[in-house]
């Protein structure tokens, strides 16, 4: 027990000595949370839009007004040549162009269908997609209004029957992607902090030769492993607390399902990341190798396939199966469930169980491998 404490104390002394590492462990999580919370957003608003209104009639102006009044589109410039529009899209000043041909109002008045053109810059797929779907809603709303007006004008006695759907969004009523991102950042941070730092700390001792020195001392391998993992376990716990605190302080995003439950389930998740960190240290000889292995073979795939950026349901079926072996997947479900839905262990137990099984298997296999390497 004493030996374990000696190693833990040494580990923190080294961490304190290394100002950069200290910053990475405690300040970076908060910064990253805030930056990702603000910047990593899929919400589309104020799409820069250019307009070519050849009709310039009350109807065309009313249509354009309905575009700008939603807040999704901001008209940056008006042109009277379509070639100018090409230039604007080419150099990226605008993402959407609206072209209203001459005779737009006349055709409406005559009861004909009045075409108009909307061009989107497809290089940014999400902005273009979301922009176009907003635009089609606006246009169909507009034409519905025309229909209604003309019916009323003709003196139709009754309004035609309409189907109306009432939409309610649960758990994230404003559909803010920040509310989706911030809990995800927690999983990402824990993975980076514990997996990467653990593997680096062990490989560093290998590189320096101190690991060999320790093996010749009376320290038992299990003491060495616990001593090396415990500090990063502690850092992980502190990071969870920091993120929970700042999420509720800065983004008004409290853990509805209970902060203690989140902490407890995070401890289970840490078993998998610490285990992987230990595993990486057994297959790497230098710190660079450990860093590259951790980033390219573990962190990036886990990030993409675990559902941090792209919803797992949208992935090809085979990749969806792959995602089942990614511990981060379960942790994301847990974190989002606790932060947004406020559900409890009665709902989240399958994920908790999966994490526990993954954690036990990964950790014990890594420990065995590490012990074997020591000999």
């Amino acid at each position, binding site marked *: 027990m004493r030996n374990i404490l000696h190693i833990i104390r*040494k580990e923190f002394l080294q961490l304190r000595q290394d100002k950069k590492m200290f910053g990475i462990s405690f300040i970076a999580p908060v910064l990253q949370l805030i930056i990702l919370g603000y910047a990593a957003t899929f919400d589309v608003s104020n799409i820069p839009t250019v307009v070519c209104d050849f009709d310039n009639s009350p109807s065309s102006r009313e249509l354009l007004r309905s575009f700008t009044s939603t807040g999704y589109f901001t008209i940056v410039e008006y042109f009277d040549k379509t070639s100018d529009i090409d230039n604007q899209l080419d150099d990226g000043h605008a993402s959407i162009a609206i072209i209203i041909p001459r005779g737009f109002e006349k055709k409406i008045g005559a009861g004909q269908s009045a075409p108009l053109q909307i061009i989107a810059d497809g290089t940014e797929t999400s902005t273009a997609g979301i922009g176009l779907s907003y635009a089609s809603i606006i246009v169909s709303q507009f034409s519905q209004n025309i229909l209604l007006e003309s019916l009323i004008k003709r003196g139709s006695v009754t309004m035609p029957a309409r189907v109306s759907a009432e939409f309610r969004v649960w758990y994230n009523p404003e559909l803010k992607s920040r509310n989706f991102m911030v809990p995800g950042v927690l999983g990402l941070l824990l993975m980076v902090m514990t997996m990467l730092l653990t593997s680096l700390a062990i490989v560093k001792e290998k590189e320096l030769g101190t690991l060999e020195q320790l093996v*010749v001392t*009376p320290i038992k391998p299990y003491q060495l492993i616990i001593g090396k993992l415990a500090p990063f376990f502690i850092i992980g716990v502190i990071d969870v607390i920091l993120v929970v605190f700042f999420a509720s302080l800065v983004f008004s995003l409290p853990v509805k399902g209970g902060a203690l439950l989140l902490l407890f389930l995070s401890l289970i998740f840490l078993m998998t990341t610490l285990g992987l960190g230990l595993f990486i240290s057994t297959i790497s000889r230098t710190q660079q190798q450990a860093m590259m292995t951790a980033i390219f073979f573990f962190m990036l795939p886990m990030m993409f396939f675990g559902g941090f950026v792209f919803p797992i349901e949208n992935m090809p079926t085979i990749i969806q199966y792959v995602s089942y072996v990614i511990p981060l997947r379960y942790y994301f479900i847990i974190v989002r469930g606790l932060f947004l839905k406020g559900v409890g262990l009665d709902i989240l137990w399958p994920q908790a169980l999966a994490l526990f099984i993954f954690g036990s298997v990964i950790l014990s296999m890594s420990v065995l491998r590490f012990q074997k390497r020591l000999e």
Partner: protein
Amino acid sequence: MKLWKGHKEQLDGKAPMDNDCAVVAEELTKKFGKFIAVDHVSFKVKRGEIFGFLGPNGAGKSTTIRMLCGLFSPTEGSAHVGGFDVATQPDEIKSRIGYMSQKFSLYEDLTVEQNINFYGGIYGLEGARLEERKHWVIEMAGLAGKESMLAHTLSGGWRQRLALGCSILHEPPILFLDEPTGGVDPVSRRKFWDLIYDLSHRGVTIFVTTHYMDEAEHCHTIGLIYTGKLIALGSPTELKHSLDRYSVFEVQCSNTVDAMELLRGQAWAAETSIFGSAFHISTLNVSDAEKKIQGILTNEKIAVSRIEKIIPSLEDVFIQRIAEEDARKNGARN
């Protein structure tokens, strides 16, 4: 009943060995796959002596020292350190030995004092005893006033002495040093050997690997290992006398390379090697060797400025032994 008795004997008697020996290796062998790193090596190290383990790089020095420290278990044969079997009692051995490798395994981002505290703690020292040992190490290494310096800011000699200090904080009776003086300046090397002598006088057994010949002369006993085999074992004097049947000459002449080439062709010439600006030649079963050498070289218009019969150096012995071993191997192959 019988079983119990056998067990007891094992505990008390520890191993069938004489008590004057700190390290005993018997037919010690380590294979990595098909590669034989250490090939049936046997030797004894007496208590309190300095045992020098010499050999070229890759000869099996470090593998042997690692088996003795309990880092590797032997493939065949056995070794006992302080009476304990390296294969079955590595934990007992680890608390009774000190180990220092060429890499000077210190935590570079910790201070001198933090390093001592950490290693002291690992070896179970605390309180007054830790303070006393810390003071001793700092004095010994000449690090007074530098306690709060980071280890990586120390220069080579200091780091080496600090590493030595950290590995003997717990006053182990046996100390293993794996090429401890690599990359250290000559003055620091000299100081380091003074410390080794001092420890030896206090009764510490020292097992040291090196490839410096001058360091070999400092040892009480030397073992020479070559391609995994122990090919010479004895005190420096004994080893030099083992070449008595050869006569060794130092020759200084105008064209060393050609001269060595010419003489190597003679049946009575056993081995030639360059020493500074001259070369050494060992001869076997020949009378008037000096005259013969002089004659051959003068015939080829090589001006000889000096031929002198010398007492062979350790290096002569090793070169001779390695040549014999190579010849034996080639003979076995053909």
